[in-house]
C-alpha cells in the first residue's frame, strides 16, 4: 500500500508541477471532474481524441504554410480550431502559442507563422509527453489498486 501512496503522492506532485509550469490549467481539472462512473474513461477518451485531432491539424498547418501562396484564412481557421480544442483540454501553453499564431496569421506574417508553427509543434509534443507520463502514472496507480487522487 505504501507504493500506492507513494505513487499517489508522485501523481499529485506531477500534476501540480504541470499546473505550475503552465502546461495545464483548470480546464483539465474540470475534465477530470466530469469523469465519473458513467464515463470512466472520459479524460483518456477526450485526450486521445485531442491527440488525433491535433496531429491532423498540425499536418494541415504545415502543408498550408508550405504552399506557394499561403491561404492565411485557412491557416487561421486551423489555428483557431487548434486553439479551441487545446483550450478545451486545458493545454494552456499550446493555447497561448495558438493565440500568437492567429495574430501572425491576421498580420499575414509568414515568418512569424512558421516560427509559431515550430513552437506549437514543440509545445504540443511537450504537452503530449507530459500527459502520457501522467496517464502512465495513473495506470500504475490503478494497477496498484489505488484510486486516482483529485488535484484541486
Amino acid at each position, binding site marked *: 500500500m505504501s507504493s500506492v501512496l507513494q505513487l499517489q503522492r508522485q501523481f499529485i506532485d506531477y500534476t501540480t508541477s504541470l499546473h505550475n509550469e503552465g502546461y495545464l490549467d483548470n480546464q483539465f481539472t474540470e475534465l477530470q471532474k*466530469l469523469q465519473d462512473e458513467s464515463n470512466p474513461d472520459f479524460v483518456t477518451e*477526450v485526450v486521445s*481524441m485531442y491527440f488525433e485531432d491535433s496531429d491532423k491539424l498540425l499536418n494541415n498547418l504545415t502543408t498550408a504554410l508550405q504552399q506557394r501562396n499561403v491561404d492565411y484564412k485557412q491557416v487561421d*481557421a486551423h489555428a*483557431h*480550431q487548434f486553439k*479551441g480544442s487545446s*483550450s*478545451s483540454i486545458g493545454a494552456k501553453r499550446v493555447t497561448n502559442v495558438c493565440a500568437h499564431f492567429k495574430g501572425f496569421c491576421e498580420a499575414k506574417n509568414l515568418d512569424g507563422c512558421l516560427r509559431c508553427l515550430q513552437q506549437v509543434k514543440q509545445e504540443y509534443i511537450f504537452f503530449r509527453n507530459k500527459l502520457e507520463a501522467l496517464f502512465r502514472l495513473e495506470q500504475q496507480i490503478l494497477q496498484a489498486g489505488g484510486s486516482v487522487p483529485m488535484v484541486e
Partner: protein
Amino acid sequence: MHLCNTMAASFIKQVFIKIHSAVNSWERSHSRCRRRGLHRDVEQDDLQHNNANCLSSYYSVFVARLAIMVMLAILIGLLTILTWHFTRLYTRASLNALAYGLRYELLQRPVLRMWSILNSTVEITTAQVKLSEFVIRKYNKAENQAEQVEVYAIMREVTWALFASHRALNSITIKYKNGFVQAFHRDPRDNSTYYIYNDLTNYTMAGLYDVNTSSSHHGWNDQTIHSNISAVWYREPLDPDTGEKIGKQKAIPPDELINIAGISQVPYGAASWHVAVSKFTNSPLLSAAMPVRDAAQGSIVAVVGVTTSLYSVGQLMKELVEFHSGHIYLTSQEGWLLATSSTTPLLRNSTSGPNLMMAVDSQDPVIQAGAKWLLKAYGKKPPPNHEVHIEKAKLGNKLYYIDSFFLNLKRLPMVGVLIVPRKYIMGKVDERAFKTLMILISASVCILVIGCVCIFVLTNGVSKEMKLRAELISHLDARRKAEASSNYKSQFLANMSHELRTPMAAVIGLLDILISDECLTNEQYATVSQIRRCSTALLRLLNNILDISKVESGKLVLEEAEFDMGRELEGLVDMFSVQCKNHNVETVIDLSDDMPKVVQGDSARVVQIFANLISNSIKFTTSGYIILRGWCEDSHSFIENGNFLLEKSSCKKDNKVILWFEVDDTGCGIDPSKWESVFESFEQADPSTTRLHGGTGLGLCIVRTLVNKMGGEIRVVKKNGPGTLMQLYLLLGTPVDTPPENYKLKYADHNLKVVLALNGSMGRMILSKWLFKIGVHAWDACEWNELTHILQYLFIPSRYTQNLTFECSKDEPITKQEIEASVFIIVVDIGLLNLSTDIWKEQLNFLDIFNKRAKFAWVLNHDTSNTIKMELRNRGHLLMVNEPLYKSKLVQIMEAAIKEKTISLRHGDTDTHELLEIDNVHSDPESSNDSEKSLNSNSTGIVQVEETRRVVSSSRYGIVSNCFLELTEVCSERNKPGANEAFPVAINNDNAREKRVQYAEKTVNVQKSLEGVRILLAEDTPILQRVATIMLEKMGATVAVVGDGLQAVEALQSPLEDGMTAQQQMRDPPPYDLILMDCQMPKMDGYEATKAIRRAEMGTDLHIPIVALTAHAMSSDEAKCLEVGMDAYLTKPIDCKLMVSTILSLTKLQPNSHIIKSTE
C-alpha cells in the same frame, strides 16, 4: 453738389465708425462680464469665436450700409442737378428770347422817332426850298424896293404856311443873299411864336442885286451877317394859329438870334443837317440847311434852315421808360448826348453858351455808369455797327442789360443805348431760381437723410437678423454637437455597462461558490455575503444604466409573457419590508380583488418599476408607511376621479386592461415645481439628495420610460398630508377574461373570525377593511393589552369548557354551535411580544390557553431569533409568516385554518401534510422539489431567512431580475405535535452548520439544475463536443450534437416540417429548448446558422434561445453574435457555472409551463 455729397458721405462714415467702435467696446465689456460670471473655459472659447464672427459680420454690414448710402447720395445729387439744370435752362432761354425782343422793341421806337423827326425836318426843308425857289423865280425881276418888299412879303406868307403846318418845328429861317433874314420861331417854354427879321433899310436892293450879280464871283459868306452886327433885329410875337401880328415889334440884340442857317452850312450847295443848341431850349436841336438856287443861273440865292427840337424823342423815351423802367439814351457817333429818358439836362452851360455834353458826363448816374461801362468795355473802338447786347453788366450794385443800336444816318450817325435793369426782366426768375434751388437742395438733403436713416434702420434689422441667424446657427451647431456627444455617451454607457456586467456576473457567481464553500468561518461568511450584496447592488446600477441607454437608443423590447402580477408585487413588498423595518417604516400592499390574477407583459420590467418606486420612497421616508395600491380601471374609474382621463373604449381593447397603481409614502415629499423634472435622468428633487440618500437619479427616469413603454403614464399627484403620491397606470394584456376570485363567496360558509393583532396600523386597517368587505368578522389590536382584552372578551377566559359563549363586538350572541362551526384565527405580530425580557414566554403561556379554540398565525420579523421560532414551534404554533402581512398571506392563513378545521372535523387529529402543498401551490418547481425532499427527510421546517438566500443565490432570479428577490414565504407546517424531535438539524446545530446543509442541498440542486432542458449543441471540434456534452448531461440536460451549422438548422427544422401545419407548429414547443452554437464551423458557421434559424422563426411566436460559443474573447464578436440574433455568448473554454446560469436565464424566459412539463 458732388463735393457736398462726398463730404456728407465721409461724415456719415465717420459717424458709423464711431458708433461701431462704441458698440464693439460695449459688446466686449459685456461679454467680459458674462465670461467673468460663467467661469467656464469652453464658453469663453465659444464667446470669443462668436465675437470674431460678430465683428466680421458687423464690418460687412457697415460696408454694405455705406455703399448703399453713397449710392443714394450720388443718385439724389444727380437728380437734383438735372432738375435744376433743365428747369433753369429752358426758362432762361425762353425768357432771354423774350427779353431780347422787348429790348429791341424798346430801343427801336425812339430810334424810329428820331428817324421820323429827321425825315420830317428834311422834308420841310426841301418843301421850303422848293417854295422859295418858286417865289424867287417868279419875282426875280424885282427891280425896285417895292417889288423886293413884295417878294419878301410873299416869302413870309409861304414860310408861315409851312411853319404853321409843322408844329414840331422850332424855327424856319431864310437868309437871303443880301443879308436879309426872315425867321419864324417857336419858343417851347411859353409856347409863343415869333417872327424875327432884320432891318431892311440897311440892305439895298442894289446891294442885293450887286450881290446877285457879283455873287457868282464873290459868293457870300457869313461875314456878311457878322458884318451886319450893327443891323437891327426885330421880333414880332405872332398868333400861333393865324400868324397875325399880335404885338409890337421889338428890337432884340443879335445875341438872341436863333440859329440862322447861313451859306456856311451848305458848303457844297447840298442839304446838310447837324445838331445844335440854342438858348431857348434846353434840348438839343436838329437843324437842317438847304440852299435855294436861282433856277436860271443856278446860283444860291438864299439858304433855308429848319430847326427841329429833339425834345419829343426824349419825351417818348421817358414814356417808354416810365412804363418799362430802365434808361434809354441816344448819342451821336462821337458820344454827344442827344436824348435821354431822364430829366437831367442834356446841355452844359459853359462860358460860350450851352453846349452838348458827352454821355459819360451825364448827370444821370445810370446813364453815366452805362456809358462809362461801354467805354471801358470797348474803348475807342466800338464794335462794328455799334451793336452790343450785354446781359450782365454790373453798374453800381445792380445788374443791367445793355443793348445799343447804331442808326447810320448820312452826316449824322447815331447810337441808341438801352440800359434795362436785369431785375426788371429776370428779377422774378432769378428770385424763383434761387428759391427753387434752395428747395431742391433742401429736399434732396432731406431725402438723403431720410434715405440714410431708412437704410440704417433697415440694415439694422438685417444685421440684427443676421446676428440672430448666426447665433442660431452656432446654437444648432452646439446642439448637434451636444446630441452627438450625448449619443456617444449613451453608446459608451451601453457598451461599458454591457462589458462591466459580464465580469460582475462572474464575480457574483464566484461569490456564490465561495458562500457555498463549507470551510468559511462565520466572519468570512459575513464578509462574503456583504460583498455579494454589494455586487448585486453594483450590478443593479449597471443594469439601470444599460436600461436607460437601451431606452434612449430605442432598443428596449418588452417581453410578452404571462405572469402573476399580485405575486410579483407581494414578493417585492416582502423584500422591501426588510429594508423598511430598519427605517421604522411600514410597508403595505393593497391590491384590490378585481385585479386580474394573470396579466401579460414583461414581469421583470413591471417589477423593476415598482422596485424603483418603492426603493425611492424608502429612501425618503423615515417614519410612517409606504403603501402600494393597485386596482383595475373598471371598478375604480369613478371612485378615483381619473386623474389621467381616458376613454372607456380604450381600456378593454384587445384584451388589455388598465391597471392603476399608487405608491404612497409619508416621506419628505417633492416640491410641486419638481413634479415633472424628477422623471428626467440624473435629476433629483433636491441637490442634497445625493449626499443624504445616495442614488444617481436614474431610477425614476427608468420608471417613466418603462411605464410609457407599457402604454401608461406616471405622475406625482397631490396628496393630503406629508409625503409623495405617485400615480401610474399600465396597459397590460390579460390572456383570458378570468373572473376575479370571489373571496366573499369562498369564505361565507366557513364563518371565519379573525383577530388582527398587528403593529402596523396602516396594514392592519387595510386588512380589516378587506376582511369586512368579504364578510369576515375581524377585530383589531395594536398592542398586547388590547389583544388580551379582545381574547378575554371573545372567549371568556375563566372557563375552558366548550360551552362558552361570547358576544362579538356587534353584540351578536354567538352560540356554542357557532363557535363550533366558526374558525377563529388570531394573527399575532411577533413584535407585540415583549422580546427584550423573558416576559414573552409568559405571554405565550397566556396565549396557549386559546390554542385549542383558535388558530394562531404568527407574523415574524426578519430578525426574529431562532429561539423564539423554536419556542413557537414547540408550542404548536406552526403557522408562521414573514412580515409584512398582506392579503394573499392572510388568504393562505385562512385557507390553512379552514383546511385544518375540516380535516380535524373529519379525521380528528390526523396528519395534514397536504397543507404544505397548499402553501407551496404557487412556488416554483424547484422549491416544490425542495419541499418534497424536505418532506421525505421529514424535516419540514425550512427557515425562512435561508430560504430567501437560497432563492437569491440560485441564479434563476439573480440574472433576470436582479432587483427582485423573491422572498418565498414559507408557512412551515408541523402538524404532528409528536414529531418535534425530528425537527431540523438546525435546532441542535449552529447557524453556519445549518447553512452548509442548505448549500449542500443547493449544490445538488445546481448540478441537476438543467434537468429536462433539451439542448442542441452545434460544435465541430470533437473534443469540445464531448466535453460540453458531458458537462450538460451532468446537469441533467438532454443533449443532441450536430457537427456544423447546416445540420443544426436541419435538426431544428426537420420536426417542424414533417407534415405539420403551421398551427401545430405554433402549438407544439420546439424540439429543443436551447442551442449552443459554435461560431466557427465548417459548411455553415454559427452566425449564418443563427440567421437562418431566426428567418425560419419569423412569423411565428417561437424564439429559440441561441448561445454562442466562441474562442474569441473580443466584445466585437459578442456584438456580432447579438446582432445576428443570438441571445447570449460564452467563451471557450466553457465555464460550467457560467454556462448553466446562462442557460437557465434563457430557458426561464420561455413559458413556465413548458419547463414544468418537461420536469414532469
